[in-house]
């Protein structure tokens, strides 16, 4: 689901979901919209379905679903929820609203 090529200050985002639940789908849609608006061409989104790969839940310390993790840039950030509150997502990702 890579949307754009990586750049130096690019955002490497991981979205953990559990199956195709409404929350998961909403989260992905919300995230995409947000990134297109605020980070056009500067982001990658990796969606991980824990239903398919449950071992990753332990590795990446996932408790709540959906969880969005900002891998890059450092430091690591976690945002949980369906990302419907755009303002909080932007705060969580350290993105200044443009």
């Amino acid at each position, binding site marked *: 689901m890579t949307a754009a090529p990586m750049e130096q200050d690019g955002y490497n985002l991981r979205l*953990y979901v*559990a199956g195709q*639940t409404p*929350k998961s789908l*909403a*989260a992905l849609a*919300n995230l995409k919209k947000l990134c297109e608006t605020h980070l056009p061409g500067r982001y990658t989104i990796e969606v991980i379905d*824990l*239903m398919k790969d*449950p*071992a990753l*839940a*332990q590795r990446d*310390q*996932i*408790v*709540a*679903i*959906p*969880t969005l993790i900002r891998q890059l840039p450092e430091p*690591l*950030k*976690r*945002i*949980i*929820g*369906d*990302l*419907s*509150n*755009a303002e*909080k*997502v932007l*705060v*969580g990702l350290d993105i200044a609203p443009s």
Partner: protein
Amino acid sequence: MKTSVRPRIVTRDLPVIAKSPTGIDGLDEVTFGGLPQGRPTLLCGAAGCGKTLFAMTFLYNGAVAFNEPGVFIAFEEQPEDLIKNVGSLSYDIERLIEQNKIVVDHIHLDRNEIEEAGDYDLDGLFIRIGFAIDSIGAKRVVIDTIETLFGGLDNQAVLRSELRRLFEWLKSKGVTAIITGERGDGTLTRYGLEEYVADCVILLDNRVHDQLSTRRLRVVKYRGTAHGTNEYPFIIDQEGITVMPITSSGLAHDAWTERVSTGIADLDDMLEGQGYYKGSSILVSGMAGSGKSTVSAHFANSICQAGQCCIYFALEESPQQIVRNMRSVGLDLQQWVDRGLLRFSARRPNLYGLETHLASMHREVKEFDPAAVVVDPISALMGAGVAGDVHSMTLRLIDFLKSRGVTALFTNLGAGSAETATTEMQISSLTDTWLLLYNRETNGEHNRQLYLLKSRGMAHSNQVREFLMSAGGISLREVYVGPDGVLTGSARLAQEAKDRADRLLRTQEVERRTREIVRRRREIAAQIETLQAQLASEEGEMELLNLEGSAREDQRAADRIALAQSRASRRAASSSSKLMTSGK
């Protein structure tokens, strides 16, 4: 016809709650089998109560003893710390992890790292637990402590509904789970977990009384099954966790008819010549220095001599000291220690609380399985609790020992006058045999006396005996009962010497008298003899006289005849016949 006290209950095949044994000594008895199988149990208590250790023990025992692999979900501690911490209980968790019998998963939640943006659920947690369970086929799960979620996440409404879902889900997975929770103000848990986990709730407690802490456990609720409702003390030490279902023991122990020697032949004689009853409890009370420990040691010694085991709970002296001291009365206790028949268990009474004492005694008795137990002195435990507690503890200890047929000897240090036949703990009525040891002061010395105040179920001596300790052991002597009262010690010896002198005097007097009589008899016999001799001589003389008399008569008669004849011849021949007569 057989009659039964209890109403007969017709049991059809009613569904019974399956239970999952915890393997924790005592807890399975309190819960009649363990935790509800396939259901979550809430384990709550204040910080430092041993919740984590309890939960880990449940998993460990499951993995080791019941072939039920387990998952430990740790919210608070890192797995490495956790493994190290329970290493102190000699649980080798690492090995079990390698063997795929235990999985430890640490869930890290840091509020600062998490931003909440919209609706979420805890599927991630479910997946993790589910994955851990499936990876080893776990039957047991511990979640320690799930309340951390409340600190890490904001949305309480979501949390609560998710927790409810979690417990339902755990049930559907068929795992027996322990959920730990921190005790809250006025509630069992800070966040009211008891609302969700409703099947079984166990409360742990660590109370401090008089600077001594005692851990206690209580089964607050256990749906669908009977359970012990009291608070049960438990101990945590290197051997693990032991819960004492002490109050559960009833008054239904067997009464033994076998006898156990007291180890003192003279005392056996006072007890129908056979000693105590097996499984009875004996109280030896007396003042300091009245010989309580020596009586105990003799008892322990005789048990070991019979090849049986004995535990000596020494609360005031060290084992070495007891062994040394008992050598002075000719007992070699060390040999029994070496042979593994005698075990000394020395502990300071104020080392820990009463319940802990009791608990550890229980465990040692269970472990060592002795035929007899000595607690010397039980009164030392007064320092570890208040009188009422000591009473109930002793009661429970006696019950427990009786139920196992263990003969128990308790010594009690009495204060003040020995005649007041009470104990501070009022345990005298609990015991079957009560020996009183006095140390009476008379004429400037103390002398030991022993009195058998009671001995249930046997015709025992009612005599006060003098109690003598020597290098040959204990011997009991009849006390001197004379016109001056009961005498012991030197007074007895003096009185006995006096008696002996009196007796000697009396015998001498009798001998003297006897001799006198013999002499008199002899004297009288001699007199009789003399008199008889006199009489005989007089009689002899008499006879002689008689004879002479009759001879003279005859002569006279003859003379008369001759005279008559001569007169007749003179008339015939004249002078010649006169010459014949004069010549005669």
